[in-house]
């Protein structure tokens, strides 16, 4: 049928505000800060935006753009220097060098044991060619790294690429993930680009998404009218791209049977845990965590502050409660930038959690 994870230009639904901002930043001749954080909750469309940007810039042909899939370069079960998968990195380097050689007159780089030296040299060679438009590296999957892993990855991979002033980075990550590496942090564009704020999703987006998915799966058929099926859900506003895709697929396979509580629970877990194509859960969440999340969605308002939360859930201190902390780690809870801050479950997920009961 179609995959809800693999990028497909045919089913990409336009995110006009976000794309316009990214392109405007990329096209600005001299920027003070060369790291652009692209932020959205889990399943919010970050990877899709990056792929769309890559495709667009490659088609236009006037900018050297490189896509970096972080999980393919690391062993997520390892730490320290063992984190970096040398074969994965070598494969990526070869592809990038080949792409660069088509555009710039540069030699391939001798391989030495210090990979930072190779990456620094690559950045230097590119910048010495004085590109008309700054090359951009699109960094995806950074938030799958733990804090310690992110420190190493930033230090050994991203910082060497960033140290020459012609190269820019767009780093996609969840709201509660911080990009590590002080030189990257102080060079981050402010404000960050929050995808879900720029292009808040709507039922119209969902319908557009559905039509494209249906045409991909059943190109000879006319998409059915979905309004009645969609409005059977009382809280969910069809504003989560990954959830939409998951439920549309379920609907197509079940001839639009009403979504059950189990379907909705599975959808929520899918959004949070994001199994990869081997079934590995990228962001595993224990049952206790899921139960707490469900309680929060159903017993607290859309946004809450510390004291009502602690009182309602009978937790003495939310800041050191391990189950609550885990909800941040998987990106299910975000903090508003207000002072004092408010907390919320990310849009879409919160409303889905209100659609079903847990035993």
């Amino acid at each position, binding site marked *: 049928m179609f995959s809800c994870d693999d990028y497909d230009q045919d089913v990409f639904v336009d995110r006009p505000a976000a794309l316009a901002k990214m392109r405007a930043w990329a096209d600005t001749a001299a920027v*003070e*800060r060369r790291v652009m954080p692209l932020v959205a909750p889990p399943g919010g469309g970050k990877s899709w935006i990056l792929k769309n940007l890559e495709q667009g810039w490659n088609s236009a042909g006037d900018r050297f753009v490189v896509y970096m899939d972080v999980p393919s370069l690391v062993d997520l079960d390892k*730490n*320290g*220097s*063992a*984190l970096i998968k040398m074969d994965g990195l070598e494969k990526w380097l070869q592809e990038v060098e080949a792409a660069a050689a088509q555009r710039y007159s540069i030699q391939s*780089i*001798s391989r*030495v*044991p*210090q990979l*930072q*030296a*190779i990456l*620094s*040299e690559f950045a230097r060679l590119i910048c010495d060619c004085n590109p008309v438009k700054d090359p951009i590296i699109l960094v995806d999957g950074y938030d799958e790294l*733990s*804090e310690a892993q992110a*420190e*190493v990855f930033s*230090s*050994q991979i991203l*910082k*060497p690429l*960033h*140290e*020459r*002033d012609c190269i820019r980075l767009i780093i996609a990550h969840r709201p*509660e*993930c*911080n990009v590590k590496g*002080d*030189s990257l*942090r*102080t*060079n981050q564009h402010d404000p960050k680009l929050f995808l879900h704020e720029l292009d808040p999703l709507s039922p119209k987006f969902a319908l557009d998404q559905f039509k494209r998915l249906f045409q991909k799966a059943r190109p000879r058929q006319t998409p059915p009218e979905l309004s009645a099926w969609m409005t059977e859900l009382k809280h969910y506003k069809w504003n989560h791209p990954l959830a939409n895709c998951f439920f549309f697929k379920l609907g197509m396979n079940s001839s639009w049977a009403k979504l059950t509580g189990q379907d909705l629970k599975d959808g929520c877990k899918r959004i949070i845990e994001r199994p990869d194509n081997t079934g590995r859960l990228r962001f595993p969440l224990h049952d206790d965590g899921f139960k707490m999340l469900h309680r929060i969605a159903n017993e607290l308002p859309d946004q809450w502050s*510390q*004291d009502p939360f602690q009182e309602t859930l009978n937790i003495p*201190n*939310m*800041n*050191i409660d391990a189950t*609550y*902390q885990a909800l*941040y*780690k998987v990106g299910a*809870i975000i*903090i508003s930038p207000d*002072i*004092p*801050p408010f*907390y919320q479950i990310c849009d879409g997920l919160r409303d889905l959690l209100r659609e079903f009961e847990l035993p």
Partner: protein
Amino acid sequence: MEEKNIRGNFIKKIGLNHDPFETPVAEQELTRVQDRFYSYFSVPLASSSQEGLLRRLRRPQPSFVFGNPGSGKSTLRLTLDADCRTVLDGTLAINYMLGEDIERPLSYEEHGTRLARALTIDLTLAIIEQFSPLHPPTSNQIESLKRQILTGGRQLQRLLRTLLEKMTPPEESDMNPVWGISQAWKIIGKAPTKYVGASKELENVLRELILPNQRDNLSWGDFWYGISVAQEWGFKRFLILADGVDARQRTPDAMLGLIAPLLDIIPSLEEKNIYPKMFLPVEIKSRVKDYLETHLKGLPFEVFFSIMEWDDAAMRRLLAQRFRAAMSGSGPYHAGLDSLATPNLNLDEKLINAAEGSPRRLLGIVSNLIDIHLARDPDSIQFNQKDWDICQQKLEMDAAIRSN
């Protein structure tokens, strides 16, 4: 020791992996927290131009940043130094500290002596940090650096010997995965800014630079030679980051007298792509401007002046960044102390008001508040009105003592 444990336990209980309020003086903090120092940096209110302060300070022009004690001048200087070391454009930052060992204004010659050593240290560090085994140095580069390294002093030699020990054998797997061999920078009072790997090529260079017979009688000649060595190694632009002017003497005359020989040579420095970046007490701002206009006969070049100022929003960001930098992992971070206080105490607002625009004062008050709270109730992680009342009394007493 027990007090330290109580405070340490408190810090852990509120989800932090170290105490970000322990030492609010930049240079002491650099020594204490080392590789976490730069994660504390928060942007003050820039008093001029929309361009970020760091970018503006990297421009090839003399620059003067003024501020009260504790306003973040040294933190800004250190962050600028780190920026020059991590965003590479051929700039060498030379940290020039006019410290407490200076009993009287320095002569022009004495400045030359001190600058020569400062240059050698920062040049050597930069060469090691930017070293690439893909481009081993030429024999000319090595020979010129060997001559210059004789002016680097015994601490630099100690660093080089330590690096060689770390690199023999050059087992990358034993290296700190975030910093590599640059963890050793603390020997010369610096913090690491990037990963520096070991290699046979670097090891060979370092061996050439171990020269025990250090020279003590340095001069401007050594500084200028050092500049030519730096140029040989690819550096094109030089920033002299001068700081610590008020470390010993705080009268405007004494402070101005200390830096006057440097102000006099700004035009000749600029001819050689050398630009002073001075971090100075706000008391001498108009004196410096007048001096430049009088002695340099109407500034023939553009000079950048800035004042370190912190409004409430900037102070709140500073507090939030302290917490964020000290967090154990991803998760809710305290944006300030309000999340650790009884409801409606408005503790952050009280703290920021009491700090009167000084980051150092703010951090010091927070540190005192923690101690006051723990003395009252070591097992609780919630600040209350009583804690603040005691803190406020202490602040009033301190103010009374100062005014007497």
